[in-house]
């Protein structure tokens, strides 16, 4: 951190320094993500492995090149960009053409992180910025899903993976529908068991709720992740969908389905908890989590798209500075009324 | 110079002066607009007519000339010439021998973003829609606007069955199906990624054919030359 941030920091006491650095936290996050990535490779085979590698590499390379272009020291050593890259890869459909993966990786780092000033200054979660750009630029490719547990998946690539840059992908394999799309467009619910263990189609890293929760729990126990964010999201989603499901079970899927389908798990545990783009206070993060949950439920039920976690998180990222202002703690020694003036 | 400016600044506004300026500029501007309108009107009218003619020939393959017909209030058709003023018009297309090829109809309906305006050709001989062209649309570029040029989608309308049953109504209503699932001649295959726009076209055609084709078939003799 001190390499980048050369400004003098003035803080109130206590001045206790904890022996925890950016690298430490980031390395732990990588450990927490590895099982998720591993399961993605197990589910989707070689296609996912290649896609995840390209996603991570494109982010790391972009960071390195952009740092150098700007005359700064390269910051790839602190692992943070590796996580961004890995997370970014986990949000993509496994069969996405590699050239699109690389374009999105560059956008994620350039637009999502670098233009705002690099590590510690990003307003939005960079991985989601990259994904949102791809979703807007290539909507068809981003919603074509590689089937899960296909035969011979460890030895063959999806036909679309190696598409020549700037060319339209041609899909050879039969494509699978995600549980959310099946629900929204065909009213077909998926069994809860399949959802929890991840025996479904979808983005590379979003299928297995179990591994995501395990990774999140590991980080939360080590105090490297604010557990209030995912807790607030899950509680609100469960509550809202529970109420709506009770009113009209035909149209609104139940809480179990809403919690374990789509990118909610991955988003709530690993995306919404981005340390930079979240509010600072504990009260703030709870408001932030509730906001994400409400938006997600609204987009999923009433929006034109089957999945809304990505947009919900990006929106809440933008709101987090304002949430901070809303719940600013009173400075010790000042009166309550005096706060209004600031 | 400075003196005058100062005086002008402090003097109360002269109403007559202001009125004179506004009126003068107003008259000049209106003259300019009228002159341009008069000069460009003939060109614009011919271009619009040419465009419509082109569209009629486009949706009625084999047509070489066209005649306009007007829908009368009692549900019949009569020849019509001149500039239309709110009438419902249909366009009959004839081949070189003067034989009726088909009839082109305009239809409107809600698309993804705004009203879609299309023209389609109906062949009484084949009892089918034989061509379609989008005249106006604000569909999403790159996705929804594929309905205008996607060859696979337009192929749906080369022979879309709208034959009538015994009671003079359309036998099978036009329906939309997913890509690759077309089995019946009255089904339209949607475009992947432009389902809403494809379904909008289907709905427009379904409504318009259901309304007009029974009427056209009853009055077919009117159109024969």
């Amino acid at each position, binding site marked *: 951190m001190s390499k980048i941030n050369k400004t003098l920091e003035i803080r109130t006491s206590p001045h206790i320094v904890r022996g925890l650095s950016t690298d430490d936290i980031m390395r732990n996050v990588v450990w927490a993500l590895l099982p998720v990535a591993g399961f993605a490779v197990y589910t989707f085979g070689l296609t996912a492995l290649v896609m995840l590698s390209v996603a991570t590499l494109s982010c790391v390379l972009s960071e390195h090149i952009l740092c150098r272009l700007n005359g700064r020291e390269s910051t790839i050593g602190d692992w943070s960009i590796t996580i961004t890259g890995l997370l970014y890869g986990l949000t993509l459909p496994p069969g996405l*053409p590699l050239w*699109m993966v690389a374009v999105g990786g560059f956008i994620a780092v350039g*637009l999502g992180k670098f233009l705002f000033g690099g590590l510690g200054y990003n307003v939005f979660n960079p991985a989601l910025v990259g994904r949102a*750009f791809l979703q*807007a*630029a*290539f*909507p068809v*490719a981003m919603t074509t899903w590689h089937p899960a547990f296909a035969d011979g998946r460890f030895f063959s690539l999806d036909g679309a993976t190696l*598409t020549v840059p*700037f*060319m*339209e*992908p*041609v899909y050879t394999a039969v494509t699978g529908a995600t549980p959310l799309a099946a629900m929204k467009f065909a009213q077909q619910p998926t069994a809860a068991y399949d959802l929890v263990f991840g025996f479904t189609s979808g983005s590379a890293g979003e299928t297995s709720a179990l591994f995501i929760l395990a990774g999140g729990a590991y980080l939360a126990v080590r105090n490297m992740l604010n557990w209030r964010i995912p807790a607030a999201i899950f509680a609100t989603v469960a509550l809202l969908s529970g109420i709506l499901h009770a009113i009209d079970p035909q149209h609104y899927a139940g809480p179990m389905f809403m919690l374990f389908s789509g990118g909610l798990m991955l988003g709530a545990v690993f995306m919404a908890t981005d340390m930079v783009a979240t509010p600072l206070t504990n009260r703030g993060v709870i408001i932030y989590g509730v906001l994400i949950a409400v938006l997600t439920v609204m987009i999923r039920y009433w929006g034109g798209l089957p999945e809304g976690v990505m947009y919900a998180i990006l929106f809440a990222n933008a709101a987090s500075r304002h949430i901070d202002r809303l719940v600013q703690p009173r400075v010790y020694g000042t009166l309550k009324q005096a706060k209004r003036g600031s | *110079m*400075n003196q005058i*400016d100062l005086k*002008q*600044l402090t003097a109360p*506004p*002269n109403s007559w*002066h*202001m009125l004179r*300026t*506004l009126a003068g*500029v*107003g008259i000049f*501007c*209106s003259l*300019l*607009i009228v002159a*341009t*309108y008069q000069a*460009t009107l003939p*060109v*614009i009218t011919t*271009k*619009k007519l040419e*465009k419509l003619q082109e569209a009629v020939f486009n949706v009625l393959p084999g047509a070489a000339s066209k005649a306009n017909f007007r829908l009368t209030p009692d549900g019949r058709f009569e020849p019509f010439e001149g500039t239309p003023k709110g009438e419902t018009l249909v366009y009959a297309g004839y081949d070189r021998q003067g034989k009726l090829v088909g009839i082109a109809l305009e239809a409107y309906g809600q698309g993804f973003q705004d009203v879609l305006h299309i023209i389609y050709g109906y062949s009484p001989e084949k009892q089918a829609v034989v061509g379609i062209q989008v005249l*106006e649309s*604000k569909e*999403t*570029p*790159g*996705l929804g606007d594929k309905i205008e040029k996607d060859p696979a989608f337009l192929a749906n309308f080369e022979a879309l069955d709208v034959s009538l049953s015994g009671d003079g109504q359309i036998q099978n209503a036009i329906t939309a199906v997913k890509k690759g699932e077309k089995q019946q001649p009255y089904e339209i295959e949607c475009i992947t990624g432009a389902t809403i726009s494809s379904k909008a076209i289907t709905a427009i055609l379904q409504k318009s054919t259901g309304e007009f084709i029974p009427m056209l078939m009853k009055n077919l003799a009117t159109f024969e030359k």
Partner: protein
Amino acid sequence: MANDLFKMPETAVSTDEFIKGLWRENPVFVQVLGMCPVLAVTNSGINAIAMGLATTFVLVMSNILVSSLRKVIPKQVRIATYILIIATFVTVVEYLIQAISLDLHKALGAFISLIVVNCVILGRAEAFASKNTLANSFLDGLGMGLGFTFALLCLGVVREILGSGTIFGIGLFPDGFQSWVVMILPGGGFFTMGAWLLFFNWLKERNKKREAALSESGTGVK
């Protein structure tokens, strides 16, 4: 503003009035004015040029008229008069475009009429034409208009290449090009605009640094 009122208007014809709009005071990249058409209609090169030229026409004509009437128009009703003049030329240009090509008219849609509210035009009428000679106002309008066209073209070309794989309607790629849908949508306008601003500011900074370095070494100051 108050100072401007007492300033003697420049009477000599100066080519600088023409050149400044192209680059130094470019209405889009420097003044960041008239963003609505810049972001909305630049999804292809042809649209960008047509929009740019239409705006240039309105800008030049309104500048000429405003400048020649500048001593007659009382200042209390000047904005109303300017708007009247601008709206007239916009209507004229709308008919002309319709006469030239119906397709182009359809592609530009409501944005032709919206030239009326393009702040570049009213801005030039108020800030320049109302205080300067006819010749200079003409040059200013032409320069600003062409600068605007240039900026629109910069955006239009990039968006057309990425968004449709063509340039001025001519295909650049073999069949099966994957179009970047976002580039044709207004969102792509924001991305492209941001990228161009980044590029031009970077260019300007670099030139400034070079000039600074040159003047330092030239005067021998360390």
